């Protein structure tokens, strides 16, 4: 069978160039062209087939150890894999199971949990969403109030999660819940896994300003979750959730999104003859250099990862500069569209279409999720500059 063949390949034994070539060839040949560089999160109905194709190839979990069905890539090879994905504009499938639940169970779960969940994630049978944020707990996540109370062999969960990306497509949700109200806020939190079909779970999609339903509210009303679904120890969920912030954080600061936006600005500039215009050329070049220098900053952190070093709090700089450069590019794109700058969707320019507002809309959440840029600045001020609080 295909899968067995794939999982037995020792990818790390390949030299980097051949590994890159292998990955590139597969993406170029098999990734559906219509979903390259999507400008919104794709739904399972759209990108599910790709997930299944990767699964069949044995490539759906590049970072997991081979014993669990992953590719077992070293950090260096994993970076190549991700670089090739980005290079070809391969869309993200709902990958919370791969990037979060898998590593979590591998490091903190028990044998039974690994045996049950991991193969189903690999197979694309379980699609996960992340139930952390609540209406009153965003940046201050540790204040969360969704509560789980022990009742016989179950927890009974009550509360509400929100901004849950693609919950409407998920079969499972991983939750941070409060299990001890008397403890200090970080110390009374546990990590639970729940099946979305459990009675008492209701999902309401939320439309965003771009008009798509990328995230949802998840209501939990007397939801019975078996006690066996807790990951790690009772009241130790916060530590586990924190530990999940591995080196993948670096990808929030990838220059890819900005490079893509810069290409759109360049294209629009050419179509409109703006490279004759020194005012535009100055603004464009300033941003082009920002994007290039972001690449240099990113490269520094990538080297660190390749050397197997752990990333420090200074990696927050990447997210700041990446998302804010992207936002400035979106502004320039809207700006060059002039009187068409308030028109959503594609506008036909001489030589091709440009969609400025989608970039503008995408730039808004980028500075909010994954730890808002204000929170990242707080981290840098405190942990890198060591300023007093």
């Amino acid at each position, binding site marked *: 069978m295909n899968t067995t063949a794939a999982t037995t390949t020792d990818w790390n034994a390949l030299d980097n160039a051949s590994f890159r070539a292998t990955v590139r060839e597969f993406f170029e040949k098999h990734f559906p062209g219509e979903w390259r560089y999507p400008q919104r999160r794709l739904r399972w109905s759209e990108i599910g087939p790709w997930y299944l194709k990767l699964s069949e190839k044995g490539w759906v979990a590049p970072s997991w150890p081979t014993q669990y069905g992953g590719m077992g890539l070293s950090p260096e090879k994993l970076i190549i894999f991700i670089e090739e994905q980005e290079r070809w504009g391969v869309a993200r499938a709902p990958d919370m199971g791969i990037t979060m639940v898998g590593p979590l169970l591998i490091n903190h779960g028990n044998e039974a949990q690994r045996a049950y969940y991991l193969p189903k994630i690999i197979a694309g049978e379980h699609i996960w969403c992340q139930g952390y944020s609540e209406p009153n707990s965003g940046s201050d996540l540790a204040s969360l109030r969704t509560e789980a109370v022990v009742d016989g062999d179950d927890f009974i969960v009550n509360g509400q999660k929100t901004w849950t990306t693609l919950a409407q497509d998920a079969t499972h949700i991983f939750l941070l819940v409060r299990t001890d109200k008397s403890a200090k806020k970080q110390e009374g939190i546990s990590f639970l896994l729940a099946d979305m079909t459990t009675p008492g779970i209701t999902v309401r999609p939320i439309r965003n300003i771009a008009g798509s339903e990328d995230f949802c509210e998840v209501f939990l009303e007397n939801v019975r979750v078996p006690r066996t679904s807790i990951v790690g120890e009772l009241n130790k969920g916060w530590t586990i959730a924190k530990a999940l912030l591995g080196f993948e954080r670096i990808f929030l600061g990838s220059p890819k999104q900005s490079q893509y936006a810069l290409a759109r600005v360049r294209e629009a500039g050419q179509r409109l003859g703006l490279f004759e215009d020194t005012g535009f050329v100055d603004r464009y070049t300033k941003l082009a250099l920002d994007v290039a220098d972001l690449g240099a900053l990113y490269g520094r952190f990538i080297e660190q990862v390749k050397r197997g070093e752990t990333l420090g709090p200074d990696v927050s700089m990447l997210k700041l500069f990446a998302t804010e450069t992207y936002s400035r590019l979106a502004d320039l794109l809207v700006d060059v569209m002039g009187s068409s700058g*308030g028109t*959503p969707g594609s506008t036909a*320019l001489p030589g091709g279409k440009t969609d400025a507002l989608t970039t503008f809309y995408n730039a808004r959440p980028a500075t909010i999720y994954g730890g808002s840029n204000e929170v990242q600045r707080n981290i840098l001020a405190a942990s890198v500059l060591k300023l007093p609080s």
Partner: protein
Amino acid sequence: MTTTHDSERAEQLTLLRESALSFAAKASPLHRARALRQQTPGFDRQFWAALAEQGWTGLLVSEKMGGYEQGFAEMAEVVAALATQVAPEPVVPVLVFAGRLLAHAVPSDLATRLLTEMAEGRTLPAVAWQEDITGAKDRTDQAATRLERQADALLLNGSKRHVRPGAGADGYIVSATGPGGLALVWVPADTADLTVTSQPLADGSYAAQLDFNNVRLPASHLLAEGPNAVAALTRAYDETLVSTSVELLALVRGMLSMTQDYLRTRVQFGKPIGTFQSLQHRAVDLLLQQELTASIVTQALALLDSPDSDASARSAMASRVKSRASDAGLQVAREAVQLHGAIGVTDEYDLGLYLQRALVLAAWLGNGSQQRRRYADLTQNATEQEHA
């Protein structure tokens, strides 16, 4: 003497502001604006009739034509009150842009009739002058659309873009180049061989593209021609830039006020997020943009209302204020979203109504950069003349 007059006017303006704000808040709650999005024509003709009943459709129109002959400062109170509620009615495009253009085209009989009907709220004229996809190449003294005269008829060929309202207009004042130079022609919406393509805008309203394919019109539909036409279009355009800035300012105020409330009430880490100094400073920066815009808007309105303002000063001022207001509108929109966090990017939260309208108005008739270019052109010429 002047001071008594000024203080009387100020008092009247305050009264008008109060009544316009209370009317708008009552008759146009935000959910009305929300419900009309993407529902052609994108606004409510009955609401328009209510505006007419208030006398506001005739505010700028001369008394001879059934109007109230008020100034731009008065109009601004009504415009701002409606913009505060993100009301979708095309008040500025119709009453200021088309209305003023018609007023400048008087003594044309047709202009007089249209203006009278507009003041009564019966006719909604729109201006169709832009042709370029980004507007960068559009100028108020030129048009690629061609006008030919044939015996007793006019023949139009060409295309127009960025026409607001993009649906629901009763006719269009179209700029075209003819034998007598730039011409302004009235084209009723139901004219044969005119194609109107409505394009949805970010705020759920519409802009139109008009295509004229040998459109025939009676000779009486020529509203103005030559230097008069250029002067009329330029003046109405400038007056519209200022009035659009009034709308943008109202949106800025709305967004900053929502953000202020949110900073006061949203609690994270055990305190209102407005206690975080980094956010306080950001809010103050928005206040600064709001007040810069407000100051320049006030000056611009006074200039429009002064009987002896000259055309080039008006144009420079109009571009200057639209540049500030467009950029402030976008900056405040972006920052307001950021300061709200995730709720700010949702469609159901009302901030989005303001943001989408700000996107539309910042772009309409030329965004910040485009207005700065025009300003530079206008003022450089002026300096050259001074030095000559």
